[in-house]
């Protein structure tokens, strides 16, 4: 930069500068460097005159720094000047920054809200006592812990809020102030547990009912009136049970009841030798004989013939248009 490049600085001058720099350590780095830069030129010049020692001529570096601060309108250094004091001074400067001041004012405005909140936390602790059998939060009055009865809880809460606000408004001695800080920290730490306790008791006492359609995931098989269909019996127009009726859905897929493969069920094969699972009704084998014991087995009911259909068993199917399977939807 501008110093020490053309003239070698004497040890004495450097030591003096270092001590002044140390005494200005709490200033912002830019300002400090600027001051030291100008001071360096000055000290070099005086040292070059060489009439007496720098200290005799300028006073101690600390005095020099103090005088510089005072005349430049800079804040005085905190007493001590050790690393701790410097840190404190730096911290103080941070706290005085504009954004920090704005933030402090903002949170300062929220203090009354905190006074109410901490009172609530303290009373809410009652609701967190282990071994409580009755509900600990009043049902009728939200956010009010039950202290014996809900009404008493409300009164206690009100009293606690009043006390807390009064405490917040008072100017306190340093000792009492420290106690209040401890109370605040405790309340802040317990805020979350109390909220959780409130949340849990609320969940326990209310059941959420959802209404409207519910999506049911697709299931295997055929259902009728909500019950699974295990077998299908088909009857013709005359009311006679049909055998080996092959059923298909609207897209031509074989109708599947979604039943697992069953060894005791009679297997039906098509001409190509493929197993056919959509030929109804299913027939089951008698375990002792390995044969279908009763091929005509059906639910116990009679199917009346349809109107207009000749009851005679010899009726030609082509003459009766209504029950023809080709009329069914594809």
């Amino acid at each position, binding site marked *: 930069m*501008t*110093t*020490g*490049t*053309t*003239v070698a600085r004497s040890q004495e001058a450097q030591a003096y500068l270092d001590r002044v720099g140390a005494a200005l350590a709490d200033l912002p780095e830019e300002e400090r460097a600027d*001051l030291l830069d*100008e*001071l*360096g*030129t*000055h000290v*070099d*010049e*005086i040292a*070059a005159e060489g009439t007496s020692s720098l200290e005799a001529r*300028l*006073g101690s570096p600390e*005095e*020099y*720094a103090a*005088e*510089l*601060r*005072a*005349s*430049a*309108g*800079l804040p005085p250094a905190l007493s001590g000047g050790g690393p701790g004091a410097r840190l404190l001074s730096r911290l103080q400067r941070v706290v005085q920054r504009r954004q920090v001041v704005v933030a402090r004012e903002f949170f300062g405005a929220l203090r009354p809200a905190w006074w109410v909140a901490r009172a609530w936390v303290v009373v809410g602790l009652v609701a967190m006592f282990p071994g409580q059998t009755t509900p600990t939060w009043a049902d009728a009055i939200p956010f009010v812990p039950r202290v014996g009865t809900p009404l008493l809880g409300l009164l206690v809460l009100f009293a606690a809020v009043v006390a807390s606000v009064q405490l917040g408004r008072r100017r306190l001695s340093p000792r009492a102030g420290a106690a209040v800080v401890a109370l605040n920290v405790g309340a802040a730490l317990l805020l979350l547990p109390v909220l959780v306790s409130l949340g849990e008791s609320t969940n326990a006492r209310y059941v959420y009912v959802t209404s409207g359609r519910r999506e049911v995931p697709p299931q295997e098989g055929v259902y009728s009136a909500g019950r699974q269909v295990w077998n299908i019996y088909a009857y013709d127009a005359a009311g006679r049970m049909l055998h080996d009726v092959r059923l298909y859905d609207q897209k031509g897929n074989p109708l599947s009841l979604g039943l697992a493969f069953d060894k005791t069920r009679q297997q039906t094969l098509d001409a190509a030798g493929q197993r056919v699972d959509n030929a109804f009704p299913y027939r089951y084998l008698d375990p002792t004989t390995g044969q279908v014991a009763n091929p005509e087995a059906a639910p116990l009911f009679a199917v009346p013939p349809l109107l207009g259909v000749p009851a005679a068993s010899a009726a030609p199917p082509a003459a009766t248009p209504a029950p023809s399977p080709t009329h069914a939807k594809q």
Partner: protein
Amino acid sequence: MDTTQLLKGVLDVAVLAVLDDEDGYGYDVVRRLRAAGLDEVGDASVYGTLRRLYSAGALTSYVVPSDEGPHRKYYGINKQGKATLAESGKTWLAFADTMGSLLAASTGSEGRR
């Protein structure tokens, strides 16, 4: 009475008056103040005052490279500085006048009247 106490109040005016004559760097201003009779002016006070006046907008500043020594930061008075000097100078002269007549009345009654 300690002159340093008095200097505190008038150092701004003194520095401005010196720079009104001619631009100067820190140590130069110190020397000129001393040459003018303000023996007890402190180096650090002058540097601090220059800095404060510059921050307040009463001075301009520029760096002059030098062959034999380090570059020097020169200060010069600007329009605002001149206005401040005129104002403060008037105040000071009026004050000095008042003090003069006050002291003349009490200590030198037999000398002058």
